[in-house]
């Protein structure tokens, strides 16, 4: 290799090199309950709306049926917003990772 880092597992398999994307754990938590039609902003230092970050969200108490899909998470500069439009109140589990 001309530059960069290569990491091999004990069995000789190349597991990381200059083309790898290293997903890293930033944190996870559960929000307070969000009422229908409302949102919560979660502050994350350094977060951007770009693709070097990701937020994965799961409703804790979603309703049965199609309304269970009506929630969103949007990343912004320094925070992300979870919006609840499921028709019922629910807390949300979230996981924040850096992807670049």
């Amino acid at each position, binding site marked *: 290799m001309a530059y960069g880092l290569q990491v091999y597992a004990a069995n000789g398999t190349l597991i990381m090199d200059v083309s790898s994307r290293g997903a890293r754990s930033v944190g996870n938590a*559960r929000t307070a309950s969000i009422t229908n039609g409302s949102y919560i902003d979660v502050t994350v230092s350094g977060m951007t709306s770009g693709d070097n970050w990701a937020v*994965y969200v799961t409703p804790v108490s979603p309703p049965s049926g199609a309304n269970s899909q009506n929630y969103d998470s949007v990343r912004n500069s320094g925070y992300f917003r979870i919006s609840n439009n499921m028709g019922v109140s629910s807390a949300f589990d979230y996981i924040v990772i850096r992807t670049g």
Partner: protein
Amino acid sequence: MMTYGIHILNSSGRTILNSDEVASLFYAGPSGTAVADTVFPTSNWSGTRLILARPSSTAVGTGTSFENGKPQLGVQPFSAQWGPSAQGFPSTSNNNGGGHVVWRELKAQSTASLSPSGTGLVVYDGLGTGSSNILFSASDLDVFATLVASGRYNGTATDGGFRLYTEFTMDASLDQGRYYALMTDTISIAVSAFGGFIQSHYNFEFDYAAGKIRVLNYAPANTGDNSRDADWAIFYLTNGGSVDDNFS
């Protein structure tokens, strides 16, 4: 510019590891095989878990149109079950691979109680040298998942009707059986529409014959938002061992 520590970039300028971040790399932890149309995983999951999954085989079932028999993987959010599609899902009712998925759990190395030993590079977060301070341990990456694609459910390509998608192409030189989709933040539900039950998806459809994974953004117009704001991810198990050597 950092004054000390380690910062590794890939050839695209993205950070692989940065000791300033206090953000630990993931490794692929426990794995298993689950029947696709029952509770999965059996213990449910919480915010601390990232669950990866893939079909257990390349088999394709019967089906047409939107429910085409290709395995679609996603979560039924209100029951933590896999979506009960009759056709677009691995199930025993449509000859679709026996109805099983292989799953893995991604864990941060800092939460995995690792005890690095022997040879290899170990990077700590600067706050200590305990297992919770590990950002990267080369000696504990025998099963390692690397992110190969990520994005948002805002695909605009369509194959007709309400199925919008973004398409990911698997590397033909790699093992298709090691591509996993992140199940956390997916949705797969059956909804009543057009006089019958159809599927509503924000999830993944595996097409091994074409070497594609479609990130579906599919919601019938009369049942929900067709442009959900949420993130998705596809991982590749770089060193999965026997669990991932079963695609022949």
